[in-house]
């Protein structure tokens, strides 16, 4: 069985945010989000800046953060409507027609990957109304929670067309992986011992976010 996962090489990442922009465009996230009286752009993907050390030896580490597609996803466990589900291929997805926007997943997710689309926006107020990808951010999917899907629309299409998924092993990959100019991102099958993602995890020193919580994230960071 396929189990999709991502590997991000932090030594290669230059924090250019191309991944974030590609995600915004691919998934047609809203330009503005009217939430808590603050208007912010919605991004399913972010690059976190983490300060390390103390003056005079302080530095900043940049960490791209997509959804971690946890094996034991807290969001799936707490969702009262079962709108969250974990697919057999490892993807954690949301049924936007079932989500009631209670936002329990937002508080339960240790990685802060979820965003609540509270805005009552017109189609043209979204970044890319004609996006090929997931259009959960555009009407009528409002009042619900959104997040990174590992570009599930690309995965499903590739599988349907008999194409292999993965970067660099396959023909199709996620939008964030596709645009990374530093070649810092890899995507593939964590169940395949010969996949590049598995080889990198085996070869290099890696970490996963907040492992002590037992969520078993499917995104690995190389250091």
């Amino acid at each position, binding site marked *: 069985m396929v189990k999709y996962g991502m590997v991000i090489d932090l030594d290669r990442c230059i924090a250019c945010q191309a991944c974030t922009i590609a995600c915004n465009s691919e998934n047609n996230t809203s330009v503005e989000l009217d939430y808590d009286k603050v208007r912010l752009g919605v991004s399913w993907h*972010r690059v976190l800046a983490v300060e390390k050390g103390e003056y005079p030896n302080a530095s900043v580490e940049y960490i791209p953060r997509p959804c971690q597609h946890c094996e034991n996803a807290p969001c799936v466990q707490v969702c009262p*409507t079962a709108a969250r589900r974990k697919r057999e291929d490892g993807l954690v997805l949301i049924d936007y027609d079932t989500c009631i*926007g209670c*936002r329990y997943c937002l508080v339960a997710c240790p990685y*802060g990957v979820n965003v609540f689309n509270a805005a009552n926006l017109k189609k043209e107020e979204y970044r890319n109304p004609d996006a090929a990808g997931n259009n959960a951010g555009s009407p009528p999917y409002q009042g619900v929670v959104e997040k990174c899907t590992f570009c599930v629309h690309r995965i499903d299409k590739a599988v349907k067309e008999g194409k292999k998924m993965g970067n660099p092993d396959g023909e199709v990959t996620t939008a964030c992986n596709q645009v990374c100019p530093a070649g810092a991102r890899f995507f593939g099958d964590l169940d395949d011992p010969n996949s590049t993602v598995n080889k990198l995890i085996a070869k290099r020193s890696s970490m996963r976010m907040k492992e002590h919580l037992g969520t078993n994230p499917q995104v690995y960071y190389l250091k």
Partner: protein
Amino acid sequence: MVSELAVQTVWDWRIAAETLLGGTAAVVFILATIMSLWKPTEHRIMVKSGIILAAPLAISAVLILMTEIGRPERMFFIFRNLNSMISTGSVFLTAFIVFGLATTALLFMKWEKPMRALMVVNSFIAVGVILYPGFIFGAVNAIPAWGTAVMPVLILITSVLTGIAVITLSTAGAYFVKKGKAGKEAESSLRSALIFTDVSIGVAALQIITVLGYLVILGRGPALAVEAYKLVMGPLAGLFWGGVVAIGLVAPLALLPIAKMSWMKGERALLLVVFASVLILVGAILLRVLILEIGVVDPFFPSEPLKH
């Protein structure tokens, strides 16, 4: 880019109000049930007011929740995942409201025996209504200030305190309404309104210990919990120490024993208990809101690199 710890702004005061109203309604109902089984004639006013208040309080909790969620028209989906504490809690809350309304109907129809039987059944459901918010917060490991073992206890005790305060206030209200009219009824409602004074003292003392225990846990916890603790020491400190601890717990704890003293009889004692009950309500509401406010989310905080 995101670089700093963020105070959670996902859930606002409405979640605090919803959980507090539900828990308060449940405690009010349980107390009315206990009184109806123990001394139904003597505490008739208290039993009646408890039954009448419980369902509307719980309904108002649901209505507040509906203003908080993004798609209230899909509320009926909320029962789909019973592994979620929100689903489980919603089952308890819905059942409690249905049985609560049925009890109210039986009260007005004066069918006492079936009413009491229904009250006993609904009291067991009420226990679930009191407990589930604690587990909703307690299950959130992502926010260390919430995901502690003390949280369900803290929520439970707050509900007990507010439940006692509300049933005391409603019975006291009945006394003030009736005191000029029916002498006997007014006298019994006066006695009823004072009956939980000892319990209030004990529960308020227990709450002080629990709150202090909670602070100790926050201070000893991982880095994020320390941040939450800083918030309690920082901008929210005035509301916490002044509102929750001084007004909501210490002041009632000082006032309620005075109401028990021999020279404080009748209406004077009642007025003091009423005042203390109002303070308890203020403190409890503030505590529930502050629990939400101190939640700190760190989107990163990685663990150590894996060794190969």
